[in-house]
């Protein structure tokens, strides 16, 4: 079956510095969509950004990610983090592209931004 790997459980970054959260995946399907969800403390997870196009940069709220099928990765990046970015970030894939099937999530990465 599908799997999503987020190797870092906790990433700590100083405010104003860049950050990259890693996400790699395994799937046997070719029509796949990828997502980053963010969960702030005591809130529901919500969509941050999504992509299904290889080598195309997707941006939202200052974050960006590029799907690289050659390396099976969809890393999340931001050039200058803010204190308000502290949250739990989940990478996910859907192996039916945009057909609205279930999402397979990684274990999540907690981002802690220090002042």
């Amino acid at each position: 079956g599908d799997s999503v790997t987020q190797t870092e459980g906790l990433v700590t970054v100083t405010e104003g510095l860049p950050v990259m959260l890693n996400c790699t995946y395994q799937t046997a399907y070719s029509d796949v969509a990828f997502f980053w969800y963010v969960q702030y403390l005591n809130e529901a997870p919500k969509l941050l950004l999504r992509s299904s196009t290889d080598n195309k940069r997707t941006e939202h709220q200052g974050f960006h990610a590029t799907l690289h099928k050659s390396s099976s990765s969809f890393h999340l990046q931001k050039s200058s983090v803010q204190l308000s970015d502290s949250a739990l970030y989940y990478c996910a894939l859907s192996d039916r592209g945009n057909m609205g099937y279930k999402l397979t999530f990684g274990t999540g990465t907690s981002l802690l931004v220090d002042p």
Partner: protein
Amino acid sequence: NAGVIQTPRHKVTGKGQEATLWCEPISGHSAVFWYRQTIVQGLEFLTYFRNQAPIDDSGMPKERFSAQMPNQSHSTLKIQSTQPQDSAVYLCASSPRNTLYFGEGSRLIVV
């Protein structure tokens, strides 16, 4: 515009007891998903419905977990004979197509 509503928000139950969790999806969304959230496993898929029909329950522990969607306005997740390892946050999400809109979850603690 109300989001996904989950009740109860917190539930403490004794080992061996039954727990029922409720979800009211966003009106007009055709799909409803159940996930279990733990620190170790992250978000684990349990089951989902589309237009009230069960589509995929591959993540459900077969013996004690069951889910239903009797009408388009609510879904239930029932756990029989609860065990301490069932302690988790259970998240419901609804979707009009390919974006999941999550509720705030039901935190289940089995003592």
